[in-house]
């Protein structure tokens, strides 16, 4: 995982609530044994027409979405299944942060483990971002703030451990493995 300090990008906005993981990547694409290359299947049923060509009306296909690293989605983003293919697909497409007013628990946990930053903001800020697609924002990890045009800062929650892992590019398995002595002691106590 690459260390992340901050992300500055224009936003691409999906103005829908309850965007579930079946939309982020449909189940028929989970028959893979790899985590690579899922970006082309991101939002597949919204993004492509039945003939396989890009749907020109879908937000991610519009010219303005080109190169956007920050996705804005409605409340309860990532609800549904535990598939980590959802953050894998977003990252592979080039999305590095998602802004919403609420994230589903498993999606948020999966996102943090892969360097996709979930930015939870209040509803007023979210509605402003939805109403103003394409604005440039900066997600800053050290201060856990989202900077809006004009310099206004909005704080978002980020646990210290998750922040440390994102900023250092540390994967959490190494930390868990370092607790081996405590795990062994626990196993002995329970046996």
């Amino acid at each position, binding site marked *: 995982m690459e260390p992340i300090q901050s992300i500055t990008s224009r936003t691409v906005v999906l103005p829908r609530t309850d965007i579930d993981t079946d939309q982020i990547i449909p*189940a028929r694409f989970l028959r893979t044994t790899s985590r690579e290359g899922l970006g082309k299947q991101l939002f597949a049923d919204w993004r492509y027409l039945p003939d396989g060509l890009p749907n020109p009306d879908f937000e991610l296909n519009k010219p303005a979405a080109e190169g956007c690293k920050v996705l804005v989605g409605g409340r309860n983003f990532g609800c549904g299944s*535990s598939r980590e293919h959802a953050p894998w697909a977003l990252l592979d497409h080039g999305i590095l942060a998602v802004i919403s007013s609420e994230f589903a628990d498993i999606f948020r*946990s999966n996102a943090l483990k892969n360097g996709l930053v979930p930015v939870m903001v209040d509803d007023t800020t979210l509605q402003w971002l939805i109403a103003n697609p394409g604005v440039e924002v900066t997600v800053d990890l050290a201060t856990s703030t989202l900077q809006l045009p004009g310099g206004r800062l909005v704080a978002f929650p980020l646990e210290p451990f998750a922040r440390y892992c994102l900023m250092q590019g540390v994967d959490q398995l190494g930390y868990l493995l370092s607790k081996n002595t*405590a795990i062994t002691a626990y196993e002995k106590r329970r046996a």
Partner: protein
Amino acid sequence: MSAPKTLFQKVWERHEVVPETADTPAVLFIDLHLIHEVTTPQAFTILRERGLAVRRPDLTLGTMDHSTPTRTEQVFGGQAFTIASAANQVRQLETNCTEFGVELMNLTSDKRGIVHVIGPELGATQPGKTIVCGDSHTSTHGAFGALAFGIGTTEVGHVLATQCLLQTRAKTLAITVSGKLRPGVSAKDLVLAIIGKIGVGGGTGHVIEFRGEAIRALNMDERMTVCNMSIEAGARAGMVAPDETTFAYLKGRPRAPQGADWDRAVADWRTLVTDPGATFDREVAVDASSIEPMVTWGTHPGMVAAVSGNVPATSDDPVFSRALEYMGFTAGQKLSGSPVNVVFIGSCTNSRLSDLRAAAGVLKGRHIAAGVQMLVVPGSQQIKKLAEAEGLDRIFTDAGAEWRESGCSMCLGMNGDTVGKGQYSLSTSNRNFEGRQGVGARTLLASPLTAAASAVRGVITDPRELMQDR
């Protein structure tokens, strides 16, 4: 005397290897790790890349369910899978389990089935355990008073390598269900009504404890249906405190404690209740006696109404009109009498023996409507055998339904059992998201009773209309 604790708190504290601090999450020990073919290949790749072993193969159990075919000739006849990538995923799981020494219920095993059906069936699911799986419906196992939740593939790797997870403690939500469910109203209707009430994000960040006389009156299959769909309210997990019903279900099961160990275990399990005076972060009250058979009309499980009711005339849900357009419904339209093309009885929500009995009770001596396709997919090979011993399979096939081998099947269509574009599927599964059962498929979630009644009439039907003469 120590402070009163909730059931969740008790189970959590038993599993803290390293407690949570202001700077670091807790290291939580996992008692049972269930694995399947879809969400594990990339986790085993991580183990290989880092030269790690599976720390506790004795606490790890594999099955194959999501991608597996349900046609007998493909499961037992050696006929090729319809989808090559599905076959590859199954082979990969076999290789991984062999190489890492993990027990696997393979394709032809008589103990194979949906991961959340076989854990309880084997008695591996027990009160007080921490249970995880790379599948959001792991919440099912909370019906036994276990703390059970879905995890991502990176976390599957964490558990394989360390038998532990990094977790921050969830908040608690008590849902107290008073009164009694009326005849023809099932646990599925109850949980759909609860999701309709609190919303699909209503449980986010929380572990739900289902309490009250209506929950106590449910059998284990029904409690599993309720806990299964906790995740559809966004909850991290759902739990029911264990009681005599729980113990009676587990006693004698192959992986439940035996002899003196059983008595010791039950004595311990009896302590796994929320203490009087313990407080929850939130509480919600529901009256079971006011609930009717329910059916979803939209594109998430919170878009739900009574079968006898209507699609709402208006809604403040910003995706309301989009959902109606996808479903081909109009605002305010009556639900009963609306056409159904496909009926699916199955999934980790409603594929257990009592679900099949309920559906068969409606179908006995009847035939499904012309033009309706009906698939009945038992949750496990054991359930299939028990159902056949009772003659349920004949009732289904005589009625014109297809009787299949176990698996997730049409719940998410990964194995090729899909619903066609624009078709209405009355399904006992758990998710009615756009495209969930196939590209453009329109899913209507309901109970096995409602599914069977709707299959007979070919339209959405209140099951009580077909139960009056029984």
